[in-house]
Structures are given as C-alpha cells and as structure tokens.
C-alpha cells in the first residue's frame, strides 16, 4: 500500500510502448515487458497469447510443466481415466449387445504410459503455441521483489511490466500430521496421477466433485473404494436433486460410502494403511459416536478442497488484498487492490474451471491492450460437468438458490427421470434425471441440472440458450432430436 502511494505515476499507463521507452534507462538489469504473467496454466497462457496477438510484448513465468492443473493434474488426465472407466462399463454391456468378449484384464500401467505420453505431447504443443505467439517463456519460480516498481525475480533475474497478471492457480489441500496423525500418509489428486498401479483398496476422503470423480474412476476400474464424507450426501452445494441422486449412484455402483464420518488417524502397518474413522450422525443427538478402522488400504486420497498457490510469491510485498482463505481478491475486471496487478483463475477462488480462467485471461488482455474498457467475463450461468458415473451437468441456480432469491411462489420446477434407451437391452441400468428451475410468470429458465448417460455433452448448447434468457416456452417450441436423451428437455411437461 505504501508503494502504491509513493508511485502514483506508475498506475495504469495508457500506452505500454511509451512506458517502456520512458523507463528503459531506469534499471538496465531489469527486463521490461508490456505484460508479465506469473503462471503457465490455462488462464495465464490464454491471457499472454491474446496480449501478444494484440501487439504487447508478453512473458509467462512457470516453474513446472506448461499447461497448469488442467493439462497435467486435472481435467485432461482425469477425463482420460474416466474414459477408461467408461470402457469398463461398456465391457459389462457387451454381451447384452451380442458381443462375445472373453476374459478381460485391466492394465493400469499401459494406460498410464499412454496418458503420460499424451500429456507430454500437450506440454510441447503449449510451448510451440507460446513460441508461435511470440510469448517469452521464463522457467522458474517467480517472486515479487521489494523494488518500488512492481518487479518479479526469477532465478536472480528481474522482470517488470506495467501490467502483471497473477495466474498461479491452486493445489489440493494436504493434511499434515499436525492436522490428523498420519495425515501425510495420504495422497491428493496430484498423487493420483502419479500412481503406477491400480490400488486394490482405496479410501477417499471428501464429498466434493473431485472426490466423486476419483471414487467413480477407481471403483469402476476395479479398486475396492470407500468414501468418507462428513455429512449424509456428496456434492452438497449442488442442487439437492443431483446431490441425492449422485449419492445413490455411487452406492449402486459399489462404492462403500461412510456417511457422517471423519478420519481421525492413519497408521502404517505391514499390510498397508490402517485408517481410523469416527462416525456420528450430527442430527441424532443420542447417536453414539462409533469408531471403526479400515484395514489394508493401499491408497488414501484426500479430496477435501483446494487452496490458492501463493506461497513463495511474496505477495505481501505488493500489499494485495487477500481473503481469509488466501485467495487474491479481484474486482469484476480482475483488478487486484493494486493498480497494474491483476489475477485470474483458481488463485482468485471463484469458479475453479479451465474455461473460466481462459476466458477471464483473454477478456483482460482485450481490456489492457485493445482499449476495450468494458471487457470482462460474466461469471453468471457458467456450465459445469462432473465426470461421475453417470456424468452430471449443471448450469445456473439450484432450486434452493432460486427459492431463496425469488421466493417459493415465483419458482416452478420441472423434473423427469427415465432409463436411457442405451440401457433398454442391458442388464446394467442407470437412470437419467433432469430438472429445470424456472422463475416468474414468464418461466425464465434459471437453472438446469441433470445426471445421466451423455449429460456431459448435452449441457453446452442448453447453456447457450439459458445465457440468452430462454424460457420454458422456448424449450417447448424446440423440435426434439429423436432418439436422444437430451430431447427429454424439450418435451418436458
């Protein structure tokens, strides 16, 4: 804050090139750019490339592999694993469809090798894309210096720019021995992608979407999987229709669900980990606390949340406003509390999704380097898919949120559930459930929630229509595509 006041002239220079010339003589040791991006993940790369396309000199600082969480330890490898698990389900259905498939065995090793090769390939593509876009790639850890002008140091070299973007993302929350005895014997989703073999016995702690996805993948691929959740259902911030159904689907698919439970300690034994779990239904006052242990666990996976990556960055030197969980606070234009410093993506703690970070990074670049002063990302109606079994798609408000904001009398809900035609001739069944949340007399659709086969690919188009302000009548007017599951949305009564 102090620096801020001392250097009023540095605040948001209008012409980047001009600034560069004016300051070129100030410190010859410092590399000057128009746009300096800390973090080579989805948001940072997109922002830097777009800035460069718009004529700015840009650099991206990354200490690990390019691509960030999404490419290396998130969406992409996760979906590869999910696809492998979907094949397990298909294999189950093959005989119903007339295929004779003899003995089947799954090789985690073969899959991991291919997955790793693909990720490396993507890392190379990202590098090439940076080169093509003439964005400088600086390898190493970034740290803000105490120079009067916002400056970043990487391996002893200093860089500065009138516009600095923090896009360092986040990482899974880890538990230390201080939190839970033996807590560090567990891994996180990062560790999941390093597993060299399929664990025989898995315990996953957490009820969020990462826990649900990991449990689905491991269980379907053949690991005996237990899930420890604190309350009675998973995905508790989703519409209760989905939360309830997803909890049921997990149990139906053979995941051993421990409700109202918490891990109290973890111990290493000769035969694997021993996880101690305490179960107590908070709702029932007289319910006694029960302590149990799960033996011979190969893999304990903490999926209890994510936290922003700011350690080592010395953000304190910049005096940026942070929230209580350490996220960098930004306004709707991605401005931090300090002029000339911006943040996008997971480090801001809002809508932790690759396409959100990409869009926010690009919008920012247009604002800074194309003088599009009102360029910003609209954070409403962001569609999200959870790659559970079957997948979940959701956009907009939950029924509970809509009722809270508009009152029960102004909210109308349409629901349906059916068995997708794919399962017409299979012995394995799964339901498809769908829900529309509508508001007001005109029945504007403010929320769409679904779980079922194909819901992952169904959502995008509906998200466009909902963003456009579609009403229930618009759904009714649309001609169905037959035979699909998505047609149920336009034929709902």
């Amino acid at each position, binding site marked *: 804050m102090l620096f801020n006041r001392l250097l009023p002239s540095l605040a948001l220079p209008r012409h980047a090139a001009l600034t560069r010339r004016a300051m070129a003589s100030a410190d010859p040791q410092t590399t000057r750019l128009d746009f300096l991006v800390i973090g080579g993940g989805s948001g940072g790369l997109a922002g830097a490339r777009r800035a460069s396309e718009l004529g700015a000199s840009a650099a991206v600082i990354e200490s690990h592999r390019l691509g960030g969480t999404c490419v290396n330890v998130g969406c992409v490898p996760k*979906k*590869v694993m999910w696809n492998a698990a979907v094949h397990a389900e298909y*294999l189950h259905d093959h005989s119903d469809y007339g295929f004779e498939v003899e003995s089947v065995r799954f090789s985690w090793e073969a899959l991991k090798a291919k997955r790793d090769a693909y990720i490396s390939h993507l890392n190379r*593509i990202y590098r090439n894309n940076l080169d093509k876009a003439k964005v400088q790639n600086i390898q190493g850890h970034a740290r803000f210096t105490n120079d009067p002008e916002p400056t970043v140091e990487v391996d002893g070299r200093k860089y500065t720019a009138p516009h600095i973007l923090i896009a360092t993302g986040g990482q899974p929350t880890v538990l230390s021995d201080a939190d839970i005895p033996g807590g560090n014997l567990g891994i996180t989703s990062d560790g999941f992608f390093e597993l060299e073999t399929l664990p025989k016995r898995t315990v996953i702690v957490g009820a969020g979407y990462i826990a649900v996805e990991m449990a689905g993948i491991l269980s379907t691929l053949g690991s005996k999987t237990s899930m420890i959740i604190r309350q009675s259902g998973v995905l508790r911030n989703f519409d209760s229709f989905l939360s309830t159904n997803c909890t049921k689907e997990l149990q139906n698919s053979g995941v051993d669900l421990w409700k109202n439970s918490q891990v109290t300690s973890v111990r290493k034994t000769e035969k694997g980990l021993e996880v101690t779990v305490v179960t107590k239904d908070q709702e029932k006052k007289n319910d006694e606390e029960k302590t149990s242990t799960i033996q011979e666990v190969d893999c304990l996976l903490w999926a209890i949340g994510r936290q922003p990556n700011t350690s080592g960055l010395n953000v304190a030197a910049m005096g940026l406003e942070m929230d209580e969980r350490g996220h960098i606070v930004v306004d709707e234009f991605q401005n931090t509390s300090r002029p000339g410093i911006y943040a996008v993506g997971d480090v801001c703690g809002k809508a932790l999704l690759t396409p959100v970070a990409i869009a926010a990074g690009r919008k920012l670049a247009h604002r800074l380097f194309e003088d599009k002063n009102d360029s910003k990302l609209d954070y409403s109606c962001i569609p999200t898919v959870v790659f559970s079994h079957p997948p979940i798609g959701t956009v907009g408000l939950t029924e509970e949120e809509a009722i809270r904001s508009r009152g029960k009398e102004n909210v109308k809900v349409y629901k349906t559930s059916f068995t997708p035609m794919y399962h017409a001739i299979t012995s394995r069944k799964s339901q498809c459930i769908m829900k529309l949340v509508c508001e007001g007399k005109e029945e504007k659709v403010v929320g769409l929630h679904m779980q079922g086969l194909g819901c992952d690919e169904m959502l*995008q188009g509906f998200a466009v229509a909902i963003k456009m302000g579609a009403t229930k009548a618009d759904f009714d007017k649309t001609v169905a595509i037959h035979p*699909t599951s998505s047609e149920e949305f336009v034929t709902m009564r």
Partner: protein
Amino acid sequence: MALSLIPPLTDGPISYQAIYQPAQTGSFHNNNMAALCRGRHRWKRTNCLHVLTRNLSGIYDYDLVVIGGGSGGLACSKEAARLGQKAAVLDYVEPSVKGTKWGLGGTCVNVGCIPKKLMHQAALLGTAVKDARKYGWQISGPICHDWATMAEAIQNHVRSLNWGHRVQLQDKKVKYLNVKGSLVDEHTVRGLTKAGKEMILTAKNIVIATGGRPNYPIGIPGAKEHGITSDDIFWLKKEMVLSSTRRGSDVALECAGFLTGIGLDTTVMVRSIALRGFDQQMAGLITDYMATYGTKFLWKSVPKSVDKLSSGALQVTWTDTRTGDEHKDTYDSVLWAVGRAPETKALGLDQLGVRLKKETGKILLGSDESTSVPNIFAFGDIGEGRPELTPTAVKAGKLLARRLAGLSAELMNYDNVPTTVFTPLEYACVGLSEEDAEERHGKDGIEVYHAFYKPLEFIVAERDASQCYLKVVCARGGEQKILGLHFTGPNAGEVAQGFAMGFQCGATYSHLLQTVGIHPTCAEEVVKVNITKRSGLDPAVTGC
C-alpha cells in the same frame, strides 16, 4: 385458457369435452366460456353446456378418428383424448414384401429410429471394444458378435414398446382398432379387420397419419425377390453375413454403418451423391469416416440385376456410370434403401378428391395440415414437403389435436428442425446447409466459422479424428445471426439439442462466444470456434 382453471368434474373425460367443445361451435360459446372461467357459477353453467355439446357431438361416433398408429397418429389421438375429445386410432401393418410384420407404434418404434439406434449402439460398442484395448483393457481371444442375441434383445424391447403404446391408449381412453382404415366420405371411415370383417366409423374430423414404407427399385430383375428393405433388417432372426447395395441416403448410411460396426463386410452402392439435401461438406466427412471405418463404397454406380446363385449367394450386376463398365460381385444379402413412398394406396383418397402431389404421391397440405377436403387432415411422413422425422410428427400431431379441439390456433413450425444421422461418426445439424445459406444470402453474405477438433476420447484410443468437424454458418452482417449449425462427432445428437434450442431463440455468433465452455468435452468446441473459412487459416484446434 388453461386446464387448471376449470374445477375437476366427476363424470370422467366426457366432461372435459363438455367444457372444451363449445370453443369450436361459435363465438357465443367462446364468450360464455371466458366468462365462465372468471365467474362464480361455473358448476351450473358447465352442466348446461355439457348437455348442449353432447347433442352436438352425438351426430358422430367420434370427434376424431386417426388412421395410422405411428408416432404422429398416437400423439395426435392421445392429445385429443387428453383434451376431452372422443378419439379412435386405427392401425394395421401390411406385411413387407418379405413378410415381416410388427406391432403398434409405426416406423419409428418398429422399423426405424428405435431399433436403428440400438443397432447403432451395438456398433459403437464394437468400436469401443477396440478402443478399450488402447485404454489398458487386455482382452484375450477374438471378439465375435452374435446377431441373434442382439436382434432378440432389440425385438423384445420393441415388443415391450408396442405393449406400452397399447396400454397408454387404454389409459388415455383412446379407442384402438387393429383394422385397415379407408375413407368413405369426409366424416366416415371404413375399417377392415384381418379376417375381412368390415366396420364403419363416423367422426367429426379424420386425420391421416399412415406414414410411408421403403421403396423397391423399378426395373431391376431380382430386386424384389432377393432384396430386403429397412422394414425387414431389424426383424431378421439369423445373422446375415452380408453385403448390400443401396443408395446413399441416410437410411443406407446408417444401416451400412451399424452392419460394418458389428463386423459384417458391407458395401454401399451410390448412384450420385450421399445424403442428398444435407450439407455436402458434412456428407463427405461422414462417408470418408465410414470408408476408413471399413464400409466399402461403390460410387456412381447403378444396379442392373440381382440373381440367386445355386450356392444361395446373390450376384449383383451393376454399371459404373463414369466408365459405362459392367461389374459383378456376390453378396449374402441385398438391402434396398432407395427412398420411401407414402402409404396412400388403400386409403381411397382419389374417390374423395384429396389432392396429392403427382411426383411423390404425398398429400398436399396447408400449414394447418388440412387437405383439399374439409374435415380431413393429414401430417407426418405422408405430407408433401414435411420432414420425415418422428419429433416433427409428434409435435405436429399434438398441435393439430389442440386446434381441432378449438383450444389453440398455434401452427407447427417446420423451420429450425434439428436432425441427427446416426452414422458411425454421428452427424447433427440445425438450420441451413452451407450451400443453402450461400444461395439465399450470397457468398459475401455469410460467414462460416469452422473447426476440426480432436475428441479427447479418440486420442488415447489412437483413432483418426480427421472427420470430427463443426461449422457455424452465420449471417455476415450485423449481429452474425446463426443460419445453420453442423457437427460431426461422438454423441452429436446429444450435443445438438441444446444448440438447436439456442438456434430457436435466435442465437448469434456472439452468444456462442459469451458462453463459457465445458472442459473437456466435444460440445465446447462449438462455443470456442473462431476461425472463419474466409480467413483461410488452419481450422485445426490445438490444446485446450
């Protein structure tokens, strides 16, 4: 007027009829009805109308008789009954040339969409099992497909749907008659049972929804004796180790696709172009994909004859129109997919003067599905210029029932109809083809955004994604309104429905851009598309 405004009456569906019927009989009753809904003395007045309308509708046996128990006919009759009309539906399946017959529900349920999609699913599983190996699934031994197992499961499912339709008709109080219907006059239908028993039904309105049946080619010796059509393929009990000749319609490509997918050696003969009427760039991608998938194509070829050899195999002779050369090859089965013809022959339309389109034999219809004869309506596949699609028939049927019940004036909108072709690489579209858009708006009047994308599921499976493509055809000026949207790839049908709705709402290119993508999916490529054809830039998507 909404159904919920009216207090429920105790004497069954007929009382709904009592409420709704007056709307049709003149403005006096209409006004009365409006007052009635607002007024305090609803009971008394309703009862009074009740008597009145009974007398009016008492002239005929039914308010509505629908000939044809397919998707459209069922939807129309059920909607009519729901609105309190006395409705009957007549359905009778004339066996195919090969003797195949089936139950209630029409083409879609028995010999169309449903069994086709299930066989398509079987084929996708055939591909999936190959992919599974790349995903680390070690499968020992060869993978065989047994037609009988698949066919039996599908046929059982179809029978359960036949039964379901009958139950629904009963529940909704629609009279179902398994008789062949024909027209006597504008209020009378003659029904003929299988045993030859005749019955006469009178109705205020008659709706024809008899759909169509596949054609056989004319003038090709052996075509009928030795060939089958889509009416037969789904009901074959025995595996056909098969190859077939047909033309490049969507039916042909869909059938060839699933046959190839379950491991049968399949050839498609195409006289001119594949998927006429569809965007031809997309049609090219679909057939290219099928060719790499293993389906053989004989382009620009015209069949001459089909002969049965002593071995039982079928010898097909054809001419390559490019060279004029004659070729011969033997196949186990020959399936004709050379278009469909309307089922009008047995209806007696000519005596009544119902006008048909000469070239197609289909019924000429007004926008309200009216024929040239009062009180006779028609819709679905039998209507001239109407899309041959289940959902349009269903929707048109429901709207027609509402109009005939005097409850609505809403017409079916046949624009913006999305459709999906379930070829091995699925294709879905809504709106104009690029050719049509160019014709209507000029080459300079449109902007085409396109992308070749790589589905993540293809990558580990090492599948060739060179035909996974999408394009958004927009008006060039102003807001860049979307004129057409085309997509090939896995789950195209599921992807397209939502976009079809956006399209229906008048989406522009910027609406796509304003929507945040869903990562990693194939559908997100539609909202990420940013390369125009005009720019000449490489439309291949790289990275996330």
